[in-house]
């Protein structure tokens, strides 16, 4: 009861702040621009990408369709979205400290654990809302504008074709996974916001950690190989696994299949452990914290 009250209050405050809507506007603008670009010049782009395949395959139908557009947009944006997530999550505690309202909140009869859980839940709900907004624009609007057809995914060594009836559930799963990945970012920014009295620090620190970890991922040096599997950034693009399909002996897609489901689940679990770790650390730190702001 007390927890749901706090979540309601935190959501109310979050959605009354103008900065909350920056992320929604930014996503609508970026996705809209990508869609406009592909609407105007997408066929040339696709033809260029398919050049090497046209000699070996007979490609028919609308390759550039809503499903492919959503894939392209997701791939482009999921590394930029963390900044938009950190904008709100990094402000959850530090923003209150900066306003001076943190001490007022803590003079009310609510336990610190409940408060931190309520705030975390609110920032997670915001993250999910942002991803749903992104899904609406990247998938919903794309399908409306570009239509729906079989999805052709071009990778360095292969082309995957997913029949249109087998695509939607994959997107539902991919967005659910993306929510988990972004909640990981959100929980990191949330944790860092405990140590600051303005939101710039936690936002910058969150982005710095993501950048450093991403660089470590790309460096093919043995010294870093042992830590890479444990970095959350190594698993943030795990949603792509839902678009890797199994093929039968005739090289045809097996409907409803995922090539390496175990790897996707392990990646999801690692992200979940990170979320729980950041959340537990936040509770421990906040319970002992002297409120001096």
């Amino acid at each position, binding site marked *: 009861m*007390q927890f749901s009250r706090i979540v309601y209050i935190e959501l109310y405050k979050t959605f009354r702040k103008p900065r909350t809507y920056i992320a929604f506007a930014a996503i609508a603008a970026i996705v809209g621009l990508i869609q406009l670009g592909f609407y105007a010049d997408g066929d040339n782009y696709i033809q260029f990408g398919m050049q090497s395949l046209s000699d070996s395959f007979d490609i028919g139908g609308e390759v550039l369709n809503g499903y492919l557009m959503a894939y392209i947009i997701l791939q482009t944006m999921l590394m930029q979205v963390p900044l938009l997530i950190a904008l709100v999550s990094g402000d959850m505690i530090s923003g209150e400290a900066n306003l001076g309202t943190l001490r007022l909140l803590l003079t009310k009869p609510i336990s610190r654990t409940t408060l931190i859980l309520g705030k975390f839940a609110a920032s997670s709900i915001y993250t999910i809302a942002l991803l749903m907004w992104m899904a609406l624009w990247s998938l919903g609007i794309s399908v409306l504008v570009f239509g729906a057809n079989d999805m052709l995914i071009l990778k360095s060594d292969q082309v995957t074709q997913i029949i249109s009836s087998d695509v939607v559930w994959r997107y539902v799963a991919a967005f659910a996974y993306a929510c988990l990945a972004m909640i990981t970012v959100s929980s990191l920014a949330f944790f860092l916001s405990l140590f600051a009295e303005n939101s710039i620090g936690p936002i910058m620190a969150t982005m710095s950690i993501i950048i450093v970890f991403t660089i470590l991922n790309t460096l093919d040096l043995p010294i870093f190989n042992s830590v890479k599997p444990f970095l959350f950034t190594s698993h943030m693009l795990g949603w792509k696994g839902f678009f890797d399909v199994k093929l039968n002996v005739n090289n045809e897609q097996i409907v409803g299949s995922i090539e390496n489901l175990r790897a996707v689940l392990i990646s999801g679990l690692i992200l979940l452990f990170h979320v729980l770790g950041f959340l537990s650390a936040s509770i421990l730190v906040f319970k002992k914290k002297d409120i001096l702001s």
Partner: protein
Amino acid sequence: MNSVIQISHLSKRFNNFTAVDDLSFSVNEGEVYGFLGQNGAGKSTTIRMMLSLIKPTEGSINIFGLSLEKEREQILSKIGAVVEKPDLYKYLSAYENMKLFSTMCGLSLGRAEIMKQLAVVGLEKRANDRVKVFSQGMKQRLGIAVALVNNPSLIILDEPTNGLDPQGIADMRSLILMLSKEQGKTLLVSSHLLSEVEQIADSMIIIDKGKKMVEGKVSELINPEKVQVEIISLDNNAAKEVVLASQWASGLIEASLEKILLETKKELIPDLFKFLVEQGILLVSIRSTNTLESYFLSITK
């Protein structure tokens, strides 16, 4: 009389700095308790510990007979507080702030009830204005309305007159007296102005460098008969000579080119004024200065 607050051997150290040092005091039910000290004396740190914002290094805090460490939520449900500045959500209106904090306290107050509470602090006509357009005085009053939203038995106000104009200070004083006398609330009011506390408090404590200097009934601690008088004239040297040669010389504390300070009985101030005028001293001002500094000096002599 029951003790509402009991502080025992409370200390708080930040690394090598001791902000509060072995402080003990108690506040009785229904009284206005003045918590006095210079800036940096440890008042806000003590208040933060009483509200569990800061954990004490040593000592215990019991409020309503319960241990703050063990019964935090139960105790806080009966306390209203404004700590230092009355910071509120600037992007929300006064009404929304009230609604939000009442919900946080587990109350579901209707609009009429919230408006009634805003009327107590004179903000009912500004209920829908955002806090960011409020003056310091209005923020202070709204802070008190938020503190009162759960109808607390104990109200803790940290420097409530800070940043207020003279009218605001008078309004705040009336509000504190109304809460105490009409509603029977227990109030702990911190201040660095002795004259402020003198007018509202029943009991008081003075702390310095985190330590208790003195505690007791205001009427017993401050001798109302004796006051310090500051005299400023166009020629302070001449005034000094006149004072030294008169019956007032025994009360002389300090004489400089800027001012003359002397101690006398309150009812004799008009006589002093008359005497100086008769002696041809061109007075600029003559006023009683029961400042905390002077009181400190008198109790540490």
